[in-house]
């Protein structure tokens, strides 16, 4: 993460119009500024020259220069980052990193770090389907299919709580911090406190198979066996929406941490993208030819890794094109996949786990390598892998498998420098800080309406014309009643309703509209007949032949 501070030129403001680069120093400065802009810049530069309005131009220039200074200062501040990321590098060409075994890693690193690799053997309590770390990586939650749920401060080896629920547990998830977790049980989702006390029963989340928690929106999402996505606001307890996917039982579920969109994988190989604001999927990707087995999205929201029953692993671009970038095959269909802070991808298939370097995101179908070599390997000794999770801010991969839980060391997986002011992600937070962070993040809670494919649309002005907006606003208004309108339409003898019924086609199809039209026409006919009769009566027997049908 941290760049070499020695090569860094002094921070100076670049002149607004860069002079022709003459010497080496200037070039280095320009390069430095460019690197800073690439890493910390927020989008492209505004072209101020083209702006006619003087005031606006001056304002924009000021904004631009502030922005440039900010990126440079952010780049300069990298010198303050304390830790450097871990690594696993071969000494010479013949060495392979995937040959390195866990005991070798544990020997090579310090005692404290070596302790982070451990194994929990729980063979009787059944296959462990879920393992989750809190957002700061301090605590671990494991859940077995047979109903054993346990939380622990895994570094200290201290058990938090242990529950034997005695019914099927399909998934478990930490909520905003280590104080609460949700468990998807046989019938519905329950929320437990960190001491194991049941706090809530979310009855409406029926038969949830997978859970996701959106920490910035305080939303707990579940997808049920019937394929219904449900959102609950965990700060108020209100159910937000129910979105039937209408694509049968889901096979995979994950969230995009960049924009809080939920990805659901289905039997027919499609992946659908959901937000609570739309009852139809925002995007539907035909990702595979067989059932999707597992999904994961990287932190920057650029890449999605999906695995299929046909053993294929595909990498998709989900920022722009929603197209497959690269794919390769494994020996067995992958059961689970996860992506670490620093974009290492761990794939669990059969009894194996393979970790891939971020290189797989930059591969294309044209590249020479058809089958990327893994960065690390684990397993092969008879424990079927069900869930993988990287521990945030640590070089640790948690594996929930057949006979318990294993924590392995994957050097280079974790983000080395956490930000202690980002709510919920401070690995060293004390009680006071946790409470503060909870309040702050509640104050900063994002509204569900802000979930969209582009999370930065918030704060933009709506440039649609007033007319357009009026039309959009009118969508709430009652749809106009066609029959009512036809009834009022003035025509000759051949009424509008009659014409509507005649021209409508499909005589054998009777729908509600047609029934109403027919009724209206009959009522009209009756009215006319009545008037005719009353006219005749009024005119008397001699004159009754002058009574006409018209009004």
């Amino acid at each position, binding site marked *: 993460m941290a760049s070499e501070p020695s090569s860094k030129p002094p921070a100076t403001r670049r002149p607004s119009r860069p002079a022709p680069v003459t010497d080496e120093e200037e070039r280095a400065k320009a390069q430095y500024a460019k690197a800073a802009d690439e890493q910390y810049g927020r989008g492209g530069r505004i072209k101020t020259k083209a702006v006619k309005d003087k005031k606006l131009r001056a304002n924009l220039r000021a904004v631009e220069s502030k922005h440039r200074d900010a990126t440079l200062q952010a780049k300069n501040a990298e010198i303050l980052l*304390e830790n450097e990321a871990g690594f696993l590098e071969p000494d010479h060409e013949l060495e392979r990193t995937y040959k390195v075994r866990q005991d070798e890693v544990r020997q090579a690193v310090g005692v404290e770090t070596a302790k982070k690799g451990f194994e929990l053997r729980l063979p009787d309590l059944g296959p462990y389907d879920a393992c989750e770390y809190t957002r700061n990586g301090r605590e671990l939650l494991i859940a077995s299919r047979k109903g054993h749920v346990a939380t622990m401060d895994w570094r200290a080896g201290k058990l938090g709580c242990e529950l034997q629920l005695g019914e099927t547990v399909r998934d478990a998830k930490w909520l905003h911090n280590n104080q609460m977790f949700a468990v998807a049980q046989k019938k519905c989702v329950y929320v437990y406190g960190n001491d194991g006390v049941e706090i809530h029963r979310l009855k409406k989340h029926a038969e949830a198979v997978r859970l996701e928690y959106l920490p910035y929106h305080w939303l707990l999402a579940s997808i049920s066996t019937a394929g219904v996505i449900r959102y609950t606001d965990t700060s108020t307890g209100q159910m937000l929406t129910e979105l039937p996917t209408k694509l049968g039982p889901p096979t995979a579920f994950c969230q995009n941490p960049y924009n809080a969109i939920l990805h659901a994988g289905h039997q027919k190989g499609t992946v659908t993208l959901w937000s609570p604001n739309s009852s139809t999927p925002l995007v539907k990707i035909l990702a595979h030819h067989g059932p999707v087995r597992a999904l994961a999205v990287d*932190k920057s929201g650029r890449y999605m890794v999906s695995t299929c029953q046909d053993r294929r692993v595909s990498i998709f671009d989900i920022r722009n094109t929603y197209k497959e970038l690269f794919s390769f095959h494994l020996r067995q269909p992958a059961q689970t996949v996860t992506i670490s802070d620093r974009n290492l991808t761990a794939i669990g298939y059969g009894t194996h786990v393979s970790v891939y370097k971020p290189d797989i995101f930059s591969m294309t179908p044209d590249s020479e390598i058809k089958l990327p070599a893994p960065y690390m390997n684990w397993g092969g000794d008879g424990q079927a892998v069900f869930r993988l999770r990287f521990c945030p801010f640590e070089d640790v991969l948690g594996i929930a498998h057949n006979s318990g839980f294993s924590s392995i060391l994957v*050097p280079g997986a974790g983000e080395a420098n956490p930000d*202690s002011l980002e709510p919920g992600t401070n690995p*060293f937070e004390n009680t006071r800080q946790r409470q503060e962070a909870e309040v702050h993040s509640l104050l900063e809670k994002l509204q569900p309406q802000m979930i969209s494919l582009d999370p930065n649309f918030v704060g933009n002005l709506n440039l649609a014309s007033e007319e357009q907006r009026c039309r959009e606003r009118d969508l709430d208004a009652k749809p106009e009643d066609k029959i009512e309108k036809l009834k009022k339409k003035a025509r000759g003898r051949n009424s509008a309703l009659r014409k509507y019924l005649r021209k409508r086609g499909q005589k054998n199809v009777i729908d509600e509209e047609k029934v109403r039209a027919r009724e209206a026409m009959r009522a009209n006919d009756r009215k006319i007949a009545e008037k005719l009769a009353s006219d005749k009566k009024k005119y008397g027997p001699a004159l009754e032949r002058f009574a006409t049908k018209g009004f």
Partner: protein
Amino acid sequence: MRIKALSRSAASAQAPGSNVAKNIRNLDPDLHPFERAREYTRALNATKIERMFAQPLLGDFEPGHVDGVYSFAKDPECLDHFASGSGDGIVKVWDLTSRKEQWQGQAHNNIVKGMCWTRDRKLITCGSDQKIQMFEPYTTPSKSPPVATWHGGAFTSVSHHRSLPSFAAASDKVSIYDISRASGAPVQTLQWPTAIDTINALAWNQVETSIIASCATDRAIILYDLRTNSPLHRTVLNLASNCMAWSPMEAFNFLVGNEDHNTYLFDMRNMKRALNIYKGHVAAVMSVDWSPTGEEFVSGSYDRSVRIWERQKGQSRDVYHTRRMQRVFSVAWSPDNNYLLSGSDDGNVRLWRAKASSRQGVKSYALRQKLQWQSFKCLDFLSSLWASLRTAVNSMPYGRGVLEARQISTGYALLMTPSKLSNTDDDALKERYKHMPEIKRIARHRHLPKQVKKAAEIKTEELAAIKRREENERRHTKKGQVRRKAARETMILAREQ
């Protein structure tokens, strides 16, 4: 094989034995998702909180006047004293900090029309009983007789020179009196040759001290130059003006509060058009006063409300009113920039916050933490400014002059400007997202008395009707015959050099 895995000791986050946790930042954008949405939410919350804390009225001064309060005078030599004059001729001097009366006296037989302070802290008042009186409120007890009296016409307004012991009084002409002279006759008299009407108000320019401006019932604004002993310029507006005030920072600009509900900012060098029009009141503007920084001003109106304006903008920043406040005839902005004063027909002098949501005094621990965290840079700047001011004060011999004191009070005001002090993250955020519809709506919303709201509605309708009529006329005349006039020029009827 080279292997290194992350290992962070707990001591890196909190030194052993200390209870202070270290805050580590990592500015990588990937670690801070939804930054825009979160910023927006924070800005929205900050705006809501600002409106929640907006409690402008601090209280009134006890005991109030028996009759309406028609004139104010701020003592330029100190921050915490000012005088108010009422319709029954009583003048009171108040202490701002205790909100108590410090001195009072019967100055005139009827309404006290104008007041000002001399540089040696004496109070000059004028009334329509054809007298100008001078009192010494700081040294004499209450109800003591005036130390000096001048006789003349029916005076309406007085204004003091910035440093010399002389003042200008307005009746149907402007008379300059010298306090140091024994004689009661004016040293100079200024009058536009053709003008005979009563002058409503006059103001002595405190920076360019040879300039005086006046406005009269014949709708004219006249500028006088003392060096040539002659009037410079006369501009007649559509309606008469009630009050005027020179900008404390830009010597050539002055405000005029008009009967047509608007306040105008004029540049004395170019009286062809106003620099800005401040629209919002629904009745005549009776009094205006600048903030010491010259960035904002306050106006009191016959519609029973006080409005605060930013110099650069045309709409008011805030509007203050209470159920019991009657027609506002006098307003003042306190020299420390934090408070406003309003004197109204109901006889009360009210004290308001200049920024409705700001709080002076000791801040709560949580707020202090927040401010410290967010604006240590700003505070740094402030402390350096304060240090330079203090050296300026120390190096100044005692009582050297008004100018320095004025500068210092202005500097102090700058220092204590609410916008500067609370120039925190929140303000920047609010500024950044102020164009968003929801934030704009919350920030702009003010409750108005029913009458004012109704009057504003009627006024908009009337103005629209006038505009429509003009457009109709324009449409039915030959092209180019009826030209549109800039709004900033329409109120000027005639000009004379």
